[in-house]
């Protein structure tokens, strides 16, 4: 221990010091630990130390059946649990070449987009808190609560939903679902402009965000950035556009791109995405096709021998599910390519040279969910 301290100290320049941000720190939203090298207030190096909430889901998947795996995915990116479930279900369904009813596809897409809005509203609230505007948190939660109520009525759970199963949905939608979703959209259309008037237009907020944490398009691609982080840098990476899944090929929506690549661009991409998600829901909500809500699968699902890759767009970016099957009831190897992991890896690149306050604000725009990174 003594030895280690000495060697660490040697690598510092005289003015620099070292600080442990996390694992218990308000800005890391969970148990991320950042090892910061700082000169006064200026960040010299950011080194994430992960694993505080690692549950080795990939190893557990090698033991579990495919139905069980779906339940584990909730616990990764818990803010887009439905989309995580969908990723595994789509991978299994594609491997089995199941014909999924249109009704299932449409419902999955609607709930997926609702999940995205819920995730973004929470992000917006926390984003405000990270730059010191505490009121945003409650505004974000006010609207998110309504979505969670819809989820609760539909499938009994508010956060870790488990609504998807390989072959469809666990239950059919609640009779109130369509009505309440429409009510929510009507409500949220009046509330989303409030977000802009409370935070976006604020001069202090803009000064804090503009020109901070700049990520170029080349770097975004090289670091594997996805979701709003990539799109804020002008990198067209929306999986919903490039590899549409479920009912996303039936709807028209714009991929939000901004060229600046700074924190404010990432912020605006997310705000704009909420409008786009609402438009997707509006296109689908009135014509949910009639039909079955699931197709029968074997009680024990055995995937054919081979490799299967499925990517979906969660609220944070591209989630990949890579299954290597040997024909048994469990995958031989299952890898989750989580969006947060890649987005975190670029933190050092964009935070160095900024102040401590910039680091916190930049990290907020990356929208990290730690269980998603740690898996």
């Amino acid at each position, binding site marked *: 221990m003594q030895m280690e301290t000495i060697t660490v100290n040697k690598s510092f320049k005289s003015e620099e010091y070292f600080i442990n941000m996390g694992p218990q720190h308000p800005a890391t939203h969970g148990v991320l630990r950042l090892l910061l090298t700082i000169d006064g207030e200026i960040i010299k190096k950011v080194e994430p*130390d*992960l*694993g505080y909430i*690692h549950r*080795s889901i*990939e*190893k557990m998947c090698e*033991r579990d059946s495919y139905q069980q795996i779906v339940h584990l995915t909730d616990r990764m990116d818990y803010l887009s649990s439905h989309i995580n479930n969908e990723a595994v279900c789509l991978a299994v369904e594609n491997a089995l070449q199941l014909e999924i009813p249109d009704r299932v596809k449409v419902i999955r897409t609607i709930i997926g987009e609702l999940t995205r809005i819920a995730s973004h509203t929470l992000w917006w609230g926390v984003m405000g808190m990270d730059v010191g505007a505490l009121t945003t948190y409650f505004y974000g939660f006010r609207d998110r609560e309504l979505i969670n109520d819809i989820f609760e009525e539909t499938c009994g759970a508010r956060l870790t939903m488990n609504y998807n199963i390989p072959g469809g949905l666990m239950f059919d939608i609640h009779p109130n679902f369509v009505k309440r979703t429409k009510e929510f959209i009507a409500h949220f259309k009046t509330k989303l402009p409030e977000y802009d008037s409370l935070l976006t237009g604020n001069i202090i907020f803009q000064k804090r965000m503009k020109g901070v944490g700049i990520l170029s398009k080349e*770097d975004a*691609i*090289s*670091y*594997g950035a996805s979701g709003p982080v990539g799109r804020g840098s002008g*990198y*067209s*990476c929306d999986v919903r556009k*490039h590899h549409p899944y479920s009912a996303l090929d039936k709807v028209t929506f714009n991929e939000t791109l901004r060229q600046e690549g700074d924190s404010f661009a990432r912020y605006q991409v997310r705000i704009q995405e909420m409008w786009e998600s609402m438009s997707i829901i509006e296109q689908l909500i009135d014509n949910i096709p009639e039909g079955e809500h699931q197709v029968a699968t074997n009680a024990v699902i055995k995937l*054919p*021998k*081979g*490799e*299967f*890759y499925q*990517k979906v767009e969660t609220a944070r970016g*591209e989630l*990949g599910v*890579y299954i*290597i099957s040997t024909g048994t009831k469990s995958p031989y*190897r299952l*890898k989750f*390519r989580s969006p947060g*992991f*890649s987005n*975190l*890896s*670029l933190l050092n*690149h964009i935070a160095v040279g900024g102040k401590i306050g910039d680091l916190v604000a930049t990290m907020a725009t990356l929208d990290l969910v730690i269980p998603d990174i*740690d898996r």
Partner: protein
Amino acid sequence: MNNEALQNLISSWHPDLTFTEEGSQFLNISVQPEQLHNLMKQLKTNSDTHFDYLFCLTGVDWESALGVVYHLESTTHRHAVVVKVQTEDRENPTFDTVSDIWATAEFHEREVFDFFGIKFNNHPNLKRLFLTEDWDGYPLRKDYVDEINMVVK
């Protein structure tokens, strides 16, 4: 570029690669560890392939061998390819790093090192990412045993 054209182009650079599309939606390329870095560099820099996006890097324990699977996509041509590399050396498996080609590989390789014990030459900061430095063994290997913490059915 479709898979066939890709296969023709890439095999013109390195004739001894093996290609397969069996049991996968992508074109799979198996490469020898010595050729890995060279091939990857070419895949990224050649303007016809231009695989600038490494979207997944997976360590796999094939029991007979340890390997790494790279999923590549081009953001301009929108075609994808899978590169696989294997070694039978379980004691000291080593590949060249690709983190100088794709920055995202730095973290993904650290994860693979952490869970599979696969070392990457020239990696800028190869140390454990999730587990503590004194952790014994590599948990995602198939022969890893932990009778206390692992629930095996």
